[in-house]
């Protein structure tokens, strides 16, 4: 029987990795000495190098006169051997003999007696064996490789270890992080209120921003003897801690903007886009309904697995975004937009793919939308339900939006109005010059009426199921069969209340008065619901 004691896999070693007080002390001293903030990658490498030295010293103490087992070495009877791979088990050679293996060539077999176990045989005189290359240590094979050779940390494990170290450094609160760099809080250069007021004034002069820290520094009159990287880091940290400033830089660039000069709708998302979660049972969704829910793009829907991200993606413009002047930050288009280093809001350049005109937009990640398209929608009279193409722009941080033109002819399309505190749908002739999805198009003549109705219903707290029922009944009158497509229902419900597809489908599946007639269509069962 052979038992391998306490051997850790690489993953287990990373999972169990804990920063020790000595690691933090070493890191702090190093940062103090260099006066330069370190990236997470550098912090990880620094800590691993320290561990490497510590492990080597510890191993030397533990080994004393014993030899580390290596299959390439030769051993004699009476010699003590340490087996790092078996948690540093130590034994004594009691017998040697010639190995017998037609495939292996000449080698010896040494029998080793362990203090608490049966004797075991090991190969010696084998030139080609992995244990000849890497000395192993206290934590087991893989763990020790990590402690001894930080450069071997690659791929997923490196990221995992970085994350563990990051979370533990954040918890320690002694070392602060900014834009992926770390520095001891106590050693930061002191940025006072006067400096911050000057920074605010500089941003004010620049129309609110964006402005890099380096552009701001000359205005602030910092002492010349402070390391420029430390100046930048300290100012970034002070700006981050002050609510007047917002970091809006994409993809690793730190850029600042005055919060009070940001568009109001970026700071306070419009009612139309605010999703107040609806309680529903996900179990109500059969696999078929789950597919239907996933097929309706929604920024608050379940993330859909993407095999390979495209550089140009077609989406259908939802009503709530059309009239908020926004785009949904769908999981499948999120990669087209830059990511922020610090802030949940960042600036982006939106390019009109038809005229080439560029406008400044904002990516608002918490509420999952992109703001800045109101004038573009108005310019081209884009209806909700229109197909839009979203693509990477020519330069980093730019995103291009286009639509597919068509002959401007009047067609029968779904329209909505709000009268007498009720939303009404009708089919009317409407001029459309943009390709659109039949089930999703909803034209509106006076959106302010809809806004008022939405506010009114919101204040009254009209239940979600009541809203859906009223809208369903109204939509059902538009077709001779009395059926409603789930996409149409989703789009129409979202005229009055922001809600992703899953709760709507769960309601259709659980309420007895909705009948699934097949495909994506439902109809009402007459007389099975109480009117009131």
């Amino acid at each position, binding site marked *: 029987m*052979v038992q391998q004691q306490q051997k850790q896999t690489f993953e287990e070693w990373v999972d169990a990795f804990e920063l020790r007080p000595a690691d933090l002390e070493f890191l702090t001293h190093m940062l103090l000495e260099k006066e330069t903030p370190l990236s997470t990658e550098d912090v990880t490498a620094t800590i691993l190098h320290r561990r490497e030295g510590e492990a080597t010293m510890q191993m030397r103490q533990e080994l004393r006169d014993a030899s580390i087992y290596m299959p390439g070495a030769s051993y004699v009877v009476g010699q003590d051997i340490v087996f790092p791979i078996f948690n540093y088990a130590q034994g004594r050679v009691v017998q040697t003999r010639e190995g017998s293996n037609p495939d292996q060539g000449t080698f010896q077999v040494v029998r080793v007696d362990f203090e608490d176990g049966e004797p075991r*045989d090991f190969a010696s005189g084998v030139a080609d*064996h992995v244990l000849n290359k890497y000395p192993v240590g206290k934590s087991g094979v893989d763990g020790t490789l990590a402690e001894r050779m930080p450069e071997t940390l690659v791929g997923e494990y490196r990221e995992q270890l970085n994350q563990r170290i990051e979370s533990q450094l954040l918890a320690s609160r002694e070392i602060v992080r900014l834009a992926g760099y770390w520095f001891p809080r106590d050693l930061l250069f002191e940025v006072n209120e006067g400096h911050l007021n000057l920074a605010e004034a500089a941003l004010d002069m620049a129309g609110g921003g964006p402005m890099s820290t380096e552009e701001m520094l000359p205005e602030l009159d910092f002492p010349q003897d402070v390391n420029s990287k430390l100046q930048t880091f300290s100012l970034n940290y002070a700006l981050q801690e002050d609510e007047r400033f917002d970091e809006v830089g994409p993809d690793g660039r730190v850029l600042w903007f005055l919060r009070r000069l940001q568009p109001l709708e970026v700071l306070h998302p419009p009612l139309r886009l605010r999703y107040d979660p609806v309680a529903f049972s996900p179990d109500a969704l059969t696999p078929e309904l789950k597919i239907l829910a996933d097929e309706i793009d929604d920024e608050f829907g379940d993330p859909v697995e993407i095999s390979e991200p495209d550089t140009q993606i077609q989406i259908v413009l939802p009503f709530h975004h059309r009239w908020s002047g926004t785009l949904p930050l769908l999981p499948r288009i999120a990669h087209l937009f830059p990511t922020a280093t610090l802030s949940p809001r960042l600036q982006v350049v939106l390019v009109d793919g038809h005229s080439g005109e560029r406008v400044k937009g904002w990516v608002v990640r918490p509420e999952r939308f992109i703001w800045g398209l109101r004038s573009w929608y108005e310019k081209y009279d884009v209806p909700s339900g229109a197909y839009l193409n979203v693509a990477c722009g020519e330069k980093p941080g730019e995103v291009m939006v286009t639509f597919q033109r068509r002959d401007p002819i009047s067609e029968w399309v779904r329209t909505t109005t709000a009268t007498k505190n009720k939303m009404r749908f009708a089919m009317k002739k409407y001029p459309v010059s943009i390709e659109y999805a039949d089930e999703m198009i909803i034209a509106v003549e006076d959106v302010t009426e809809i806004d008022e109705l939405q506010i009114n219903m919101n204040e009254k707290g009209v239940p979600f199921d009541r809203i859906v029922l009223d809208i369903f009944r109204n939509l059902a009158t538009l077709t001779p069969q009395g059926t409603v497509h789930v996409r149409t229902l989703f789009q129409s419900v979202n005229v009055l209340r922001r809600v992703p597809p899953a709760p709507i489908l769960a309601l259709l599946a659980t309420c007895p008065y909705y009948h699934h007639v097949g495909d994506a269509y439902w109809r009402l069962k007459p007389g099975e619901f109480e009117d009131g």
Partner: protein
Amino acid sequence: MISPAQLAPLLVKSSLETHFHIDFEWWGPHSRALHIYLQSHLCEEHKSEFTSDDEKGEMADWMNPETGEVQRLDPIRYALSAHCSQQDRYLTLKTSLVDAIFRVFLSNGNQSLTPRELAHHIGREGKADVILRTLSGRRVYKGLRPVAE
């Protein structure tokens, strides 16, 4: 009669951290059954070499490629450890759970492993609890048992 060493693992409740291995003593007097079962794990090349039920042959020293530990193995176990277990089709998702676990131990020199480690080795991540239930139930499959600490 069951020996104290065989009994010991049965008295301890197994967990996901318990180490399992092939207890060749479990096969006891049924060495022919073991031989036939081992034959089923051979690759095509070696199946023809070990067609007879003859269990005899020269023992060889098999060296564990990870630890350097040496085991004296009979020809069929040597072929399994040194050659068959290195073939692509040795362990696939179509291999039954018990056979897959058995094959892992044949390939690693019967070094004990936990259900979590076994799940990883047989490519069934997240199935450690199924492996634990299989190996720690009343019925012993193919001699797969907890290691006596």
